[in-house]
Structures are given as C-alpha cells and as structure tokens.
C-alpha cells in the first residue's frame, strides 16, 4: 500500500470518499458540512457527491440525530456531524434513548448503522462550551460503540470501519490533532473496532491512552526515556468494544500502569480502565494504577488557567514516576 503524509482531517475525508463511492446508502448530514465543516472534516465531499448526499442541516442537533436514526433504520447509512461534541448534549435523547436502544428494545429486528462524528477536546482557548471531551458519557451507554483515534492512519481506518459497522458508532476526533499530519494509506483502509495498538514499546510502565492523549503520552515517554524509564504506550483506539486483552498483555509485562485522557478524571473513562485493571490484575500490579485527567472544573478560557486544568505531558510524567514510587518532581 502506498502512503503519503496527510492531516487527520483529510484522512477522515478520504474514509468518507471511499465509503460514499462504494455504497450509495452512505450520506453525510450536519451543519455547514457542504462548506467542509468547522475543521475541514468534510472538505470536498459536497463537490464530489452533491447536496443529495452531503446535507446541510438547520441548527437542530436533536433532529440531525433523529433523522439519522430514521434513515439508518430504513435502509441508509448516515454519517451525522455534530461539530463540537458539546452540541451532542442537545441531542442526547436521540443518541441514548433512541439510537443506542433501538436494536435491543425492539428485539433485534433492526440495526442502527449510523456514525456520529464529533470534535472534542481543547484547542486554543475555546472555553467551557467548546473544549470538553465526553467519551465517558457515551461509553457508559450500552448499544453505542465509541472510537477515538490518535493519528491520521487510524482516523481513516476507524472511520471507514465505523461506517461499515451495523451499529451506532460515536467517532470522536480531537480538535488539537485534526490538523496534524501523518502517514496514511492512499487506498481504502480499515482498522477493526475493538483493537488497541501499541504506540511505543517499553518495559517499565504502561500508559493506556487514546485520542490526543496518545501523542502527549509519547512526548512524556520520550522525556522519561532520557531518565532511563521505558514507557509502553497503548493506544486503545476503541473504547467500546474495549480491547482488554491488549491492556492485560502490556500490564503483565510492566506491572505498573497509568491511564491517561484529557477529559475530567472524576468519573472519567479512566476510572473504568483503572477498575478493570485492578480487578483482573491485582496480584500483578506493583503499584496502584494512576489516573491522569482534567481537574474537576469546566474548561476555562484563559490560557494559563486552561493549562492548569488540562493534563499535559508533565502530568503523564508525574504519574509514571508516581507508579515507580519516585518522589514527585513537582
């Protein structure tokens, strides 16, 4: 397969192109998407596929999701853009009470093959209503699959697979990495849901992460390598289904674990990871699993405040050192 370096956002466009060329049932709907979307995640699709398949929606988040549910259960494969992930809060009834429950509560007679794309995370002081990461909400809801790629190649491969998938998939694209470049296969490319990958090998401590926190963890790992500490970084890619086998394989090797995400630590997805690791690998662990996540506050606008709330590479370094019993550097 030939690869080029393209941005994460462009990689998702390619996934859409492959899917839409292959299958006329696939269409996109969302606000302003024929103009490319707020982060270029839909760029060029309107030109290629026209307004029938790239549908600019009114500012009506609830109905964007409900239309997706109605279309998905009557033969189509919608990809619904929610733009900023906070806007999903205006469509939670449709996402949770409808999309996630339809298959089960109707006794398996119908599938809901839709993808919900949303941009999450902190980028450039967007303040409290445009900076959150809400994967913990989605992951808690049976019936939703949740993916959060960390790099352009996975962005392409996971989106392609999510569109193929018969069930509702919440596809989270972090704003900070949407413009980052990386090698991406030119061809149609699929990454299976529910399969983690090892972003860096190491034997001392496992850092379990996903989305934008993977590059941050890699940065921390580089810094720790200078101190002679070899960190293994596991990129979950999918939160639901969760590849616990991959986590366990790494933990069995390192016996020390940090789980890291940008969203709030309290009640975050890291708590699920930490709990499962403790439950399943208690005797293996040399130290309790350490969590890295945002401090419990809405995301502030001021850059120094934002940096104080959101975890960066420092926080990962500190957590790794903590699991090693080293005194905190701060």
């Amino acid at each position, binding site marked *: 397969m030939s690869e080029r370096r393209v941005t994460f956002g462009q990689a998702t466009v390619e996934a859409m192109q492959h899917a839409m060329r292959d299958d006329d049932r696939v*269409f996109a709907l969302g606000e302003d998407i024929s103009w490319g979307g707020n982060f270029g995640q839909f760029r060029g699709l309107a030109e290629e596929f026209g307004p*029938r398949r790239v549908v600019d*929606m*009114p500012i*009506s988040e*609830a*109905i964007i*999701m*409900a*239309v*997706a*549910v*109605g*279309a*998905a*259960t*009557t*033969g*189509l494969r*919608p990809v619904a853009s929610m733009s900023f992930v906070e806007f999903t809060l205006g469509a939670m*009834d*449709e996402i949770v*009470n*409808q999309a996630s429950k*339809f*298959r*089960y*509560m*109707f*006794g*398996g*007679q*119908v*599938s809901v093959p839709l993808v919900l794309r949303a941009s999450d995370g902190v980028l450039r002081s967007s303040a409290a209503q445009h900076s959150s990461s809400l994967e913990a909400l989605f992951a808690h809801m*049976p*019936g939703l*699959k949740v993916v959060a790629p960390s790099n352009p190649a996975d962005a392409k491969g996971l989106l392609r697979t999510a569109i193929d998938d*018969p*069930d509702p998939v919440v596809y989270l694209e972090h704003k900070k990495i949407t413009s980052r470049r990386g090698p991406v296969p030119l061809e149609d490319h699929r990454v299976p849901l529910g399969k983690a990958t090892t972003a860096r090998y190491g034997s001392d401590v496992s850092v379990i992460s996903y989305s934008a926190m993977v590059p941050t963890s890699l940065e921390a790992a580089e810094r720790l390598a200078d101190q002679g500490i070899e960190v293994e970084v596991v990129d979950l890619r999918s939160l639901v289904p969760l590849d616990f086998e991959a986590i366990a394989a790494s933990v069995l090797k390192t016996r020390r674990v940090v789980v890291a995400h940008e969203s709030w630590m309290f009640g975050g997805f890291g708590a699920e990871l930490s709990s499962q690791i403790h439950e399943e690998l208690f005797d293996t662990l040399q130290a309790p699993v350490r969590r890295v996540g945002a401090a419990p506050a809405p995301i502030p606008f001021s850059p120094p405040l934002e940096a104080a709330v959101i975890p960066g590479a420092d926080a990962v370094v500190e957590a790794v050192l903590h699991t090693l019993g080293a005194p905190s550097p701060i």
Partner: protein
Amino acid sequence: MSPDQTAAVVTEGTGRQVARGFHQTMVRIRTFETHVERLFLEGRLPGFVHTYTGEEAIATGTCARLDAGDYITSTHRGHGHAIAKGIGLKALMAELYGKATGTCRGRGGSMHVADFSLGMLGANGIVGGGFGIAAGAAFSALYRSSGQVAVCFFGDGAINKGTFHEALNFAAVHRLPVVYVCENNQYAQFTDRHRTTAVDDLSVRATAYGIPGMRVDGNDVGAVWTAAGVAIDRARSGGGPTLLDMQTYRFGGHYVGDAEVYRDSAEVNDRKRLDPVGRWEAGLVSEGWATEEEISAVWQTAAAEVEDAQLFAEQSPDPDPGTALDDVFTEARR
C-alpha cells in the same frame, strides 16, 4: 349509549367494503384495548399500559391510506397504530406479556411495540420521539426514490417538544413525504392542553413552516380518511409535509389505573357521546351498509380473536434469561 351524531359513511373514494373495513379495524382496536385494560387490572401484564380507546378512528382512517411499505412512527399509546398498520394481535399481545413470541421478543412491552417489516417504526416511550424519526424515514424514502410516505402520530402534549419544531422545519425545507398527525385528545397526562399550549387550534402551527395545516374531526373515521388521504397524496407526489390536528378524546385514563382526578365524569360522558365506533356504526346502519347483526358479528369475531391472542400470549414462553445480553449490538446473538 348511542352516539350523538351519525358519521357520514359515504365519502368520496370509499364504498361499502371500505367503510365496513374501517369498522372492523376500529372494533378490533377497541376490543383489544378493552381486554388489555382488564388483563392489566387483573395483574396479568407487567409494566404499564396506555390505551387508545376513543381514538380508534385516527389510526384506522390514516393507516387505511398507507401502503404496506409506508412508515409510521407511534407513541406510548401505540396499540391502535400497531393494529391499524397490520401487526397481528397475537404478536402484539405476546409483547404486552413480555413473551418471547412478542413483536420485540418481550424486550419492549407496551411502549415499544414495533414491526419494521410492516413499516411500524416503533411505539416510543419518549414523548415527541417520533418527529425526527419520521422525518428521517421520509428523507430515506426520498433519497431512495422509493415513493414511500411516513406518518408521524403524536399527541397534543407532544406538540410543545422542541423536536416538533426542528422536525417540521427540516421536513418543510426538504419537502419530505411525511404527514404529522396530532391525536389531540385534549390532555397530556393529567394536564388540560390549554394550560400548557399557547394556541387552541394546533394546525396553525403549520404556518411557521409554510406548510398546510388542517383541523379534522378525529372521531369521524371518514373525515380522517379524507384528510389523511389529501395529505398522504400530497406527500407522495412531492408536495411536502402536512400538519393535521385531529380532535379526539381518550375514554380511559392516561394509563390504566389512572384515578382521573383531573377531569370530571360529566365531561367524559359528554365526550363519549362522540364515540368514533358508535358514530360509524350508526352511519353504516342508516346507509344500509351493515345490519345490526353484521355489526354484532364484527364484535364477536374481534372478541374471539383477542381471546385467542391472550391464550397465545399466556402459553408462550418467557424469553430465556441467557439471552439477556443478545442484540445490544448486531453481531452478538446466540
């Protein structure tokens, strides 16, 4: 009680057969609901149930205008829609019993009866849940150039949900083949609609979307049939959505067991005089399209069918608890 009015059974485009068909459907719904009410009070049914008694003309007259491939979305008060769209009484009753033979294999119960193969996209426990789903189904029909139409049934209480507004605007912009049918039974749970809704004639809300709106006597199945026909034809031929405000009244409580402290029996009795079934029967008889004996026979047939359904449901097995985690996702099924 004999009804105050006789419905005119002679309507453009119907005839004796169609008119008698309406009667049969209404009687089947009425009989099913009356029976279900008793079963619930006897403690035979899990959950809770909302019956459609008094509102039968709406589902009957509307669904009679739909093709088998057309879609409907339903509500918490969905048994009548299910029957009118063709779900068999056995599968319906079994679902109310939570049995493995129910439409949803016992997973859904009264509030989530569905049969997607019949275009019945589900009763829905979320008030207003159907607005956007119907729009989505209609969008899908247009996208696929399938010629299908979607009908969204909803209550007078649901009209104040934001989803009403979002869906009707979207449907109007895209001239979607969808019809919004308000089953205006004057109450939302215990609350008189006038206490929470700014306008009396709900069809004026069509103005906000530049689409046609019309108030209809929802207790006259012929009037329903006529109005729904116009709206459905318009939808199917590319004319876009319509909002119909169908006036009706529920004879029973909001749910079975409701003490109904919020309305007095004088009002209820008064409104019962506009019984859609009785009015239609009076019309059939006065037109000479059915005899009293034929009408009795319809009731007897329905009663037997409902009892059969009960027997079927009661003899059906519960779902296997070992399957409790099946069908959360599509691949996992034993």
